């Protein structure tokens, strides 16, 4: 484990990504302690630029503190991004692994189900799902997981199809290992690089998708996210750039830091790179 950490942090990009992500996570978690008021309370004149007295990031169209909004927005955006990606990854890896490892009828069946999800325009499906379930944090997470897993399942299936023919898998069968053990202990570790890569992209796209939902007023009305901040400020975009640019920048930095961490994770997990 200590070795793993050393390998992970030996890459500057991964270390930087981790540091930035940890900072964002800290601000998100500590938001109620850091700020005396909630994200919805009005603290001053609308559209004050960043650096105005007491307003590090300025104020928005309603005169709310942008800094507090960004901190609370991080809570929602990160929660949605990470939880929905985890759900999508678990579903996608399980179905993809089973389809790819067993092949044949099982594969046909599972892939037809996957295709069913893929042929429906995913954002339309998401909108229908969320409005059907009433917009809330839970329905947003569920909806994003539902449109995310087919991509993961496809990739994992492909990896398993390629790997199951390898001789070490045959050797494991001959040694009498159970299918479960072969799938999770023999094959899955070799399929990790694309899973980690897609997973880290997915966190980013989930945050963006949540933003898009909020933009369409389909987000949770009781919580502020980076997306809903952009959505709510769009009318002021030309007169007060910080109202949209700052939440946008937050998304960008978060997604970038997660991608860097994903690269570092793959590097640290690969035994070929270990001695260096």
């Amino acid at each position, binding site marked *: 484990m200590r070795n793993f950490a050393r390998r992970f942090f030996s890459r500057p990009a991964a270390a930087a990504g981790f540091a930035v992500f940890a900072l964002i996570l800290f601000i998100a978690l500590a938001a109620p302690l850091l700020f005396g008021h909630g994200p919805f309370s009005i603290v001053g004149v609308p559209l004050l630029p960043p650096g105005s007295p007491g307003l590090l990031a300025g104020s928005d169209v309603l005169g709310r503190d942008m800094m507090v909004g960004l901190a609370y927005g991080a809570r929602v955006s990160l929660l949605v991004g990470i939880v929905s990606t985890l759900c999508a990854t678990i579903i996608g890896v399980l179905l993809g692994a089973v389809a790819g490892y067993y092949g044949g009828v099982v594969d046909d069946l599972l892939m037809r189900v996957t295709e069913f999800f893929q042929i429906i325009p995913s954002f339309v499906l998401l909108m229908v799902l969320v409005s059907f379930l009433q917009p809330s944090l839970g329905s947003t997470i569920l909806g994003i997981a539902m449109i995310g897993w087919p991509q993961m399942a496809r990739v994992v299936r492909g990896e398993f199809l390629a790997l199951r023919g*390898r*001789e*070490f898998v*045959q*050797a*494991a*069968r*001959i*040694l*009498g*290992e*159970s299918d479960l*053990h072969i799938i999770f202990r*023999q094959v899955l*570790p*070799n399929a990790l690089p694309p899973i980690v890569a897609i997973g880290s992209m997915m966190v980013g796209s989930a945050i963006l998708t949540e933003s898009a939902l909020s933009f369409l007023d389909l987000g949770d009305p009781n919580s502020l996210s980076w997306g809903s901040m952009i959505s709510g400020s769009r009318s002021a975009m030309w007169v007060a750039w910080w109202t949209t640019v700052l939440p946008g920048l937050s998304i960008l930095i978060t997604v970038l830091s997660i991608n860097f961490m994903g690269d570092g994770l793959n590097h640290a*997990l690969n*035994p*070929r790179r*270990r*001695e260096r």
Partner: protein
Amino acid sequence: MSASAIAISGLTIALPPGADRAHAVDGVDLESGAGEITCIVGESGSGKSLTAHAVMGLLPSGVRATGGSIRFGDADLLKLAPDVMRRLRGRDIGMIFQDPMAALNPVMPVGRQVTEQIRAHRAIGEAEALAEAAKLLGQMGLEAGRVLRAYPFQLSGGQRQRVMIAMALALGPRLLIADEPTTALDVTTQAQIIRLLKDIQAQRGMSVLFITHDFGVVADIADKVAVMRHGRIVESGPAAQVLGHPSDPYTKSLIDAVPRFRNETPPLASGTPLVTVNNLGKTFQRGGLFSRDKPVAALDSVSLTVGRGETLGIVGESGSGKSTLARCIIRLLDPDAGEVLFDGADIARLKPRALKPLRRRIQMVFQDPFSSLNPRHTVGEIVTAGPRALGEDAAQTTARAAEMLRLVGLDPAAMRRYPHEFSGGQRQRIGLARALMLKPDILIADEPVSALDVTVQAQVLKLLDDVRRQMNLAMLFITHDMRVAAQVCHRVMVMRRGRVVESGATAQVFASPSSDYTKELLAAIPGRARLGFGN
């Protein structure tokens, strides 16, 4: 001997910093005259392929020639500008490679690929080029009309290699570079291609640089031989001299390591067989929901027996069904017909659950030393996998694994390392240790040495034989190489297209084969005449 077509002198190729040695090729001098076939022989990592790539101006990035010269005609190939070199390549220097499938474009008919090659260097029309291509393919012994329209996947490996040779020769090069051109081919096809190359070389009087690891092939084709090791030429000279009276100890060891028909394993007295296979059949059918391809019979009523302490060789070319047979016996595949009696009980149709207790008694060693070990597991995890799957005591298993690694000739400290840190031969030893950990009764070895260098091959064969003796194992030894089979098997069985063509005691099958196919296989063994096989 005429003037040299190509003269390499003092060629030095540097490796990027951090590689295992500073120079991949270190001061190589080599000449090949017009009308001469010069073989560069060596094991993997000897620098033989890099030397050839330097001549073609195709060194991989990060690797460059730092010294010496390659004179071709009036030019020094190392000093030519890339675009001049490109015009030379293909026109004056032809090339053929090991894997014709990878060198041909899979979605373009063969005819277009040949004419493209011709028209890239000469200003002629498509019709004219096509006529030329047909003529060339005809000279290669191909049925030009059909092959021109065919896609690469519709041709056999030998036909594809003939197409590659036709393309290489299309512009009448003065030098042909052949990098292991027959290594991926079956032995009978290999013999044909070697004969073809010799004939064409004699007709055209060009110079050939032939890269190979196989001294048998050298014996069949070479006028001159250069033996390479660690980037240097350790010995060179006329073929007869190098092969007949090698002066360098390394050359001697390489020639000695070529398996001879030296059968020291007479058949055992017949006892009760451990495994009896009766009329085993397996048919493959591919296709989707609406269309089915024609079924292919991979195994057609194959029968065999093997007893404890006995090695049965199963010999055949690709597509003979020998690997399918192994996988049906070990139940990686389910046979369609027939029975596999293991200690008297039929296991051909056992359900996975019922099969599990038997698994430990039948084990297998695989062909590919790279794909047979999980790259993400340590050697310790790999070797103890079998006992762990059976729920055996961890501490005891680890102790036994260390002992087993020592038995196969590895340091037990290897347990903590990963497969990629080991050489091909060492990996095969790890694979063997993994199989032996379960104390099997029968070991199936599927081409266990075909991916290894000859000297390593000899060591692994010896280890397999020692282990068989020590543990009184029954062994099914699957190979495409008659020479290897002759060395280790008590009895052999020759397969072709899913059927058994011939079987019997090794010495008898090799000395007086009864089927034409076996005779053909034996005749095709490279270097048979010159290296003194068949005694």
